[in-house]
C-alpha cells in the first residue's frame, strides 16, 4: 500500500517552464513566422498532459512525457503539410533528409538550452519596441499567460496582446534569424538581452508593485534567464556576471523587506539575519567573476553597490566612503537623476542631511523627478534629520501624493506621524 501512496510531484512552475522550453524548441522546428502555430502545438501538448495526469497521476518523468507528446504533435503538423508552403529553409532541411531523428535531438537538454537562448535573442531583438520585448519574453520564454503579463506589468490584457501582436507582425514582415548572433553583432545584441533581464527584475523588485507573489515570480524569472545566458560561454561576458550578481544581492533581501503585516521595511530597519546568505555568496562569486574583465560597466558598479550593502554586518558598519566612490564613478559614466538621488543619500550619510539636500538641489535634471515619490521622501527624511519638522511633513505629504502603492503610502504615513510626534 505504501508504494501506491508515493505520488511523483511536479516541480514549481513546471507547466510554465516547460511551456518556455517547448516554445523555443518548436520555434526552431517551424520558424519564427509560425509562432502562432507553435503556441497552439505547445498549448495542446500541455493540455494533454493536464487532462491525462488529472486521471492517471503524474508520470515518473513528466518532462519527458510532455516532450514526447509535443514531438508527436509537431510531426503530425509536418505530416499534414499544413505549413509546408510557408516553411523556413531550416525547417525544410531538418525534415527533408530524415524523419524523426533531428527532431528528437532538439529535445536533448543541451539543445533545449540552445533553443531558449536563440529565443532570448529574438525576444530582445532591437527592432522590437522595448515593451514588446518584455511582454514577448514573459510570454514565450517564461510561459506567462496574457492576463498574468498584464498583472505583472500593471497594464491591461488588451495592451499586452497589442505588444505581442506587434512583435509577431515584425517576425512576418522581416526575416529575423532564430539564432544566437555571432561576432561583432553579439556584443550589442547581448546588451539588449541584459537590458530586458534588468527591466524584468526591476519590475519585480519595485516596491510599488502591489502583488508580492508576482514580484517574486518576476525576479525569479529574471534570474533564471540570467543563469541560462551565463551557461553559454559566448554569452558570459562581464555584464552577464555582474547582472546576475546584482540580482542575487537584491533577491537575498526579499524576505527581510517586509514586516509581518506586509509593510515596507527600510534598509536600516531590516533584520539582516533574514538576508539569504547563500544568495549573497553566489552574488559575490559572480561579481568577482565579472571583475576579471578590463573595463568597468554600469552593471558592475550597481552590483558593487548592492554588494556593499549586502556584506555589511549592520547598517552602522556600512562602508559609506566606498559607496560614495562607486556612485561617483557611476554618475560620471552614466549620468542619471536616479543615480544622483541615491548618491545624495550616501552623501547625507557621510556629511549630514544638509549636504544631502545640497546634493539633491545640484541634480542636473531634478525637474524630471518632481513626480517621483522617493525624491520627496528623501527630502523629507533629510529635513527630519535636520530638525525642520514642518518642511519634513510637507515633503512626506507630497511623497504620499506621488505614489499609488498602498504599502508605500503606509510607509510614508508612518514617517509623517513620526514627525508629528516631535511637534
Amino acid at each position, binding site marked *: *500500500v505504501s508504494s*501506491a*501512496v508515493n*505520488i511523483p*510531484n*511536479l516541480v514549481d*512552475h*513546471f*507547466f*510554465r517552464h*516547460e*511551456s518556455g522550453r517547448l516554445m523555443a524548441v518548436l520555434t526552431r522546428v517551424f520558424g519564427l513566422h509560425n509562432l502562432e502555430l507553435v503556441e497552439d502545438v505547445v*498549448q495542446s501538448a*500541455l*493540455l494533454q*498532459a*493536464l*487532462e*491525462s*495526469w*488529472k*486521471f*492517471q*497521476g*503524474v508520470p515518473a518523468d513528466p518532462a519527458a512525457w510532455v516532450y514526447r507528446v509535443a514531438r508527436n504533435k509537431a510531426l503530425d503538423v509536418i505530416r499534414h503539410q499544413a505549413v509546408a508552403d510557408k516553411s523556413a529553409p531550416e525547417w525544410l532541411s531538418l525534415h527533408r533528409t530524415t524523419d524523426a531523428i533531428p527532431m528528437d535531438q532538439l529535445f536533448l537538454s543541451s539543445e533545449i538550452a540552445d533553443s531558449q537562448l536563440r529565443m532570448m535573442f529574438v525576444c530582445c531583438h532591437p527592432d522590437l519596441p522595448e515593451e514588446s520585448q518584455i511582454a514577448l519574453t514573459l510570454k514565450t520564454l517564461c*510561459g*506567462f*499567460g*496574457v*492576463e*498574468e503579463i498584464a498583472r505583472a506589468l500593471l497594464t491591461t490584457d488588451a495592451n499586452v496582446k497589442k505588444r505581442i501582436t506587434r512583435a509577431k507582425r515584425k517576425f512576418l514582415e522581416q526575416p529575423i534569424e532564430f539564432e544566437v548572433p555571432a561576432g561583432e553583432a553579439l556584443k550589442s545584441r547581448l546588451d539588449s538581452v541584459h537590458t530586458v533581464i534588468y527591466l524584468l527584475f526591476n519590475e519585480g523588485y519595485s516596491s510599488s508593485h502591489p502583488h508580492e507573489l508576482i514580484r517574486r515570480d518576476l525576479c525569479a524569472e529574471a534570474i533564471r534567464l540570467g543563469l541560462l545566458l551565463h551557461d553559454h560561454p559566448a554569452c558570459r561576458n562581464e555584464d552577464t556576471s555582474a547582472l546576475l550578481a546584482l540580482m542575487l544581492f537584491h533577491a537575498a533581501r526579499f524576505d527581510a523587506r517586509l514586516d509581518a503585516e506586509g509593510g515596507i521595511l527600510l534598509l536600516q530597519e531590516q533584520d539582516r539575519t533574514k538576508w539569504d546568505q547563500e544568495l549573497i555568496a553566489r552574488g559575490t562569486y559572480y561579481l568577482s567573476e565579472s571583475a576579471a574583465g578590463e573595463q568597468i560597466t554600469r552593471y558592475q558598479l550597481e552590483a558593487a553597490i548592492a554588494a556593499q550593502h549586502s556584506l555589511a554586518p549592520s547598517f552602522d558598519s556600512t562602508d559609506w566612503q566606498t559607496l560614495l566612490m562607486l556612485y561617483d564613478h557611476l554618475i560620471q559614466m552614466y549620468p542619471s537623476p536616479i543615480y544622483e538621488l541615491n548618491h545624495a543619500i550616501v552623501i547625507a550619510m557621510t556629511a549630514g542631511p544638509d549636504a544631502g539636500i545640497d546634493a539633491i538641489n545640484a541634480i542636473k535634471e531634478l525637474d524630471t523627478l518632481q513626480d517621483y515619490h522617493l525624491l520627496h521622501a528623501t527630502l523629507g527624511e533629510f529635513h527630519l534629520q535636520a530638525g525642520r519638522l514642518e518642511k519634513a511633513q510637507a515633503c512626506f505629504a507630497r511623497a504620499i501624493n506621488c505614489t499609488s502603492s498602498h504599502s508605500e503610502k503606509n510607509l510614508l504615513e508612518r514617517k509623517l506621524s513620526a514627525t508629528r510626534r516631535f511637534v
Partner: protein
Amino acid sequence: MSKFIYVFRGGRDPQASPERMQAQMQKWMDWIGRLKQQGRYVAGEPLQPGGKVVNTAKKIITDGPFAEGKEIVAGFFIIEAETLDEATAMSKDCPIFESGGSVEIRAIQVINP
C-alpha cells in the same frame, strides 16, 4: 468495500495559462493523494476528446453528443467505498467542480455466479 466508478464530465479550459494548469494539476494531485492515502483510489484513465456514437435502430453513426464541452466525458476513476453514499461524499472535494465540470458516480455491478 465495493468498487465505484467516477465519470468526469467537462471541466476543460483550452485557454488556461500554464500557471493555471499547474494550479489545477496541484489540486488533482492533492485529491488523488488523499484518496490513495485512504486506500480508496484503484485506477484512473483519461479519455480522448473525440468519439463516435452508433445508433443501431437508425443505423446512424455520429460524432456523438460530444460537441458541448461540458458534456464531454474527460476520464474516469475506479475507487473503493463502503456505500454509494460514501462514494458520493468522497467526490465532493473533486477539483472538477471548480472548473464547471461534473462527476457521475456509479456502483460497479458485481455478479456472483
